[in-house]
């Protein structure tokens, strides 16, 4: 039985239980999740070919007038579903309603990712053969390559949302491809990685040759990388690093559950200039094929596109259901969970700077003494004080308007977000979105996101 048939089979039972819950509570819904997949991972002489650990379960959520109560469970059979609802009805108190729950009425809708080349149309042995031959090919490029980790992951993410007004399902397919290259010169061990994560099918299987070449070359350069001298620099950032800045700078700070907790300085700056007029920034779950996209969020809200910064002015933030309700703010499709086992929070989807008018070469030519930040790593938010921390794996020196080939690693960007964003003096005419990463809320609650932008030029402190 496929996933859609399964949920249609239990829909009448769930619908009946929602009706029972709605007789007592102001609002209720059920979210079902079933995530499965296939992993083909080649790591030197080792191979891992397997289903990946599946997620299967659901959560009932009710609003009792004061707060939400949720019961998550993995045993989705009729008897257990009814007994969970019995428990909710007997254990959860009801209060006078403090906030109205906003919900879009969509009725019954079923969504599915388009796969140009369906993943199940390709034989497993052909997928494995591709990964094996690519590993051998990369490993043979240089004797300093000690190991190559080649990852192929098919992800089938099925979710169903059932409330009094809606019965929505989405069947999302995503393909992740990553290569990690470990190199050593006998004195140290370094690594570099790159890849693709896109929604769709087998059409995304090939990591372009130029990306493989660049990943290998940059890994080699890391063996002789220098430590950067602390200080302020003129920076040109690649789309990948620009995306990390977008995500960490004003992504987390505009997740509006942080407004309720008084943890976001952005709450006081709506409508004010906080970045260069060249800066426009979006969060959008509507971007076709991007890894952070979906049709509806984990609270049943249809996908939206939110303009967070418009020409340097902070416009609005992203909401989950609770934040929209309590702040009386517009609902956006940012209510997301790590899985049915966890609470939903206001979370980003695909976050990116909009392109401008400058060319990359023009930007590098305009720098007398600076750094081209090529490869991102990780970052951390500080919405309360607008601090920013980003670790970059690779940066290259720029002298007199040209790249010198001198590599620095690792490089840490730290600073005050408005200073950084106001210093943006050129925005590229390119746009790339990268979806390899996951995003945490604090240090947990991991969800798939993407981020990106054009090349950008700015000033910041490096260390």
């Amino acid at each position, binding site marked *: 039985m496929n996933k859609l048939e399964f949920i249609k089979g239990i829909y009448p039972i769930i619908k009946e239980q929602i009706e029972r819950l709605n007789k007592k509570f102001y609002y209720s819904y059920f979210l079902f999740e079933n995530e499965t997949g296939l992993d083909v991972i080649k790591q030197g002489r080792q191979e891992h070919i397997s289903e990946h650990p599946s997620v299967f379960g659901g959560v009932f959520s009710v609003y009792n007038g*004061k707060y939400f109560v949720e*019961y998550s469970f993995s045993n989705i059979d009729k008897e257990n579903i009814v007994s969970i609802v019995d428990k909710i009805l007997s254990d959860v108190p009801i209060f006078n309603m403090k906030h109205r729950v906003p919900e879009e009425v969509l009725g019954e809708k079923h969504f599915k990712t388009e796969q140009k080349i369906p993943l199940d149309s390709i034989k497993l042995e052909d997928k494995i053969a591709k990964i094996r031959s690519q590993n051998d090919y990369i490993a043979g490029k240089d004797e300093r390559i000690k190991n190559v980790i080649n990852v192929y992951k098919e992800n089938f993410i099925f979710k169903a949302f059932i409330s009094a007004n809606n019965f929505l399902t989405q069947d999302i397919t995503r393909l992740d491809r990553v290569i990690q290259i470990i190199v050593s010169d006998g004195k140290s*061990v370094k*690594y570099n990685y790159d890849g693709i994560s896109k929604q769709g099918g087998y059409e995304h299987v090939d990591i372009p040759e130029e990306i493989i070449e660049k990943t290998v070359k940059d890994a080699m350069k890391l063996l002789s990388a220098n430590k950067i001298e602390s200080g302020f620099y003129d920076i040109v950032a690649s789309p990948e690093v620009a995306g990390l800045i977008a995500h960490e700078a004003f992504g987390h700070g505009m997740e509006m559950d942080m407004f*309720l907790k*008084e943890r976001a300085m952005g709450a006081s700056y709506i409508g004010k200039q906080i970045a260069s007029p060249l800066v426009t920034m979006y969060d959008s779950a509507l971007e076709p094929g991007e890894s952070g996209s979906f049709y509806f969020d984990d609270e049943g809200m249809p996908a939206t596109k939110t303009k967070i910064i418009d020409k340097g002015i902070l416009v609005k933030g992203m909401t989950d259901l609770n934040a929209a309700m309590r702040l009386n703010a517009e609902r956006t499709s940012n209510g997301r969970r790590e899985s049915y086992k966890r*609470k939903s929070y206001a979370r980003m989807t695909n976050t990116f700077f909009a392109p401008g008018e400058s060319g990359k070469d023009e930007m590098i030519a305009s720098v007398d003494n600076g750094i081209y930040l090529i490869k991102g790593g990780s970052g951390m938010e500080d919405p*309360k*004080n607008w601090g920013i921390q980003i670790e970059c794996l690779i940066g290259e020196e720029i002298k007199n308007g040209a790249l010198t080939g001198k590599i620095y690693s*690792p490089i840490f960007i730290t600073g005050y977000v408005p200073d950084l964003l106001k210093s943006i003096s050129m925005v590229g005419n390119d746009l790339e979105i990268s979806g390899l990463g996951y995003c945490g809320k604090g240090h947990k609650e991991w969800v798939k996101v993407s981020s990106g932008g054009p090349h950008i030029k700015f000033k910041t402190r490096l260390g």
Partner: protein
Amino acid sequence: MINKIKEALNKNKDVYAWEIKTVESKSNQLFLIKNYIEQLRDVSTVSYTVKVYNLHEINGERQLGLSLITLQHNEKNIDARVEAAVEIAKYSNNIPWEIYAGGDYYYDKSSVSDKIVKDRRGLLFEFFDRYKAMEAQIKPARYSSLELFATMRDIEYVNSKGVNETDKRTSFEIDYVVLSGNDAKDMECHNYRKVVFPEMLDFEAEIKKSAKYATDSLNARLPKSGIYPVVLMEEPLEDLFSPLVFQTSGRANFQKQSMLKLNEEIIEAAEGDKITMKSNSSVKNGLKTAKFDEDGAPMQDFTVIENGLFKKRWNDVRYAQYNKEDHTGSFGNVEINSGNMSMDEFTEGEDVVYYIMSFSSFMPDPISGTFGGEIRHGYEFSKNGITPIKGGSVSGSIGESFKNIYLSKEKVLRGEYMGPKAVKFKKLNLTGE
């Protein structure tokens, strides 16, 4: 359910070996914004993770394939799922290894809180009451949010070699933010702690400390830029030694990701304290204290680095056979030796010393050993007194920065780390003013 899975595995002739891990988890969770309830959660899950092995030949060489399936509580087609897993396992070619065959003694470890087993929701509300009672005492600081998680897990491990063990584990997590200041200037302190026994967590002391940090941050400034003595305390210690754990593993050796050589110094030309690092799987309240590991083998205590010398590689079942070395089992809690200096002595003879209690994020790279982070909270100790610092960053690497490392006499247990309460780097790169 386990018997049905075993039956399906045993009757399939292509299954060379198998392992089943069952985890039944019950968790209660409470989420507060300021001092009101945002959400209450009740989570109950059961999962059956099955590893299916197939032995086959390619060009006359024996190869082992491993495939993993996750079965649900009411799985209808176990035979078909096992069959599919075997078919996938036939495609993966690995140097064969044998799964754990038992024969070792299992020690019962103290990893269960009765409070969590008996009344998780009651426990959450007990902490909620204590939280409310503290509110007046932390002024001028105030609450932003609090999340509490009380979780109990029953774990059963069974394999085709006859190993069958059970274990019960509990955990209690607090994750909160305290604010201090006003509309013009407002600072926060975030604190996350995870323990096995909630009664061993001094909740009130944690909140008071966070309130002090948030209030002190109102007067914080950037550290100076340059090379300075830096002392790491509290949160960063939990991950500081993680690259050494990875680098001393059989996996890192087999995958050529480690430069460490047995019986050689882990740090060349070290001038500071020599490190001794042990796996401790027995300490009460350690997050890695457990009866058995992922292979079903008993968790053991062993020494990998002794007085700066790499003495023993730790190997799980697979890598012990690949590296032809002793099987130690998985790494437990990271135990680091204490040093000769007390924390008070760390400032003696120094013009300026920076103490750092938390970074925005601190994740040393396991392969390259580099580390760094933006400073969330710390203090500058100088002749001018003690000044709170915030912002700027620290960066270093195990290979270079550990040459001048000093370990405090005082010890602490935090998460899966037990060792010096403070670690001083004589020279570390700071980026600030």
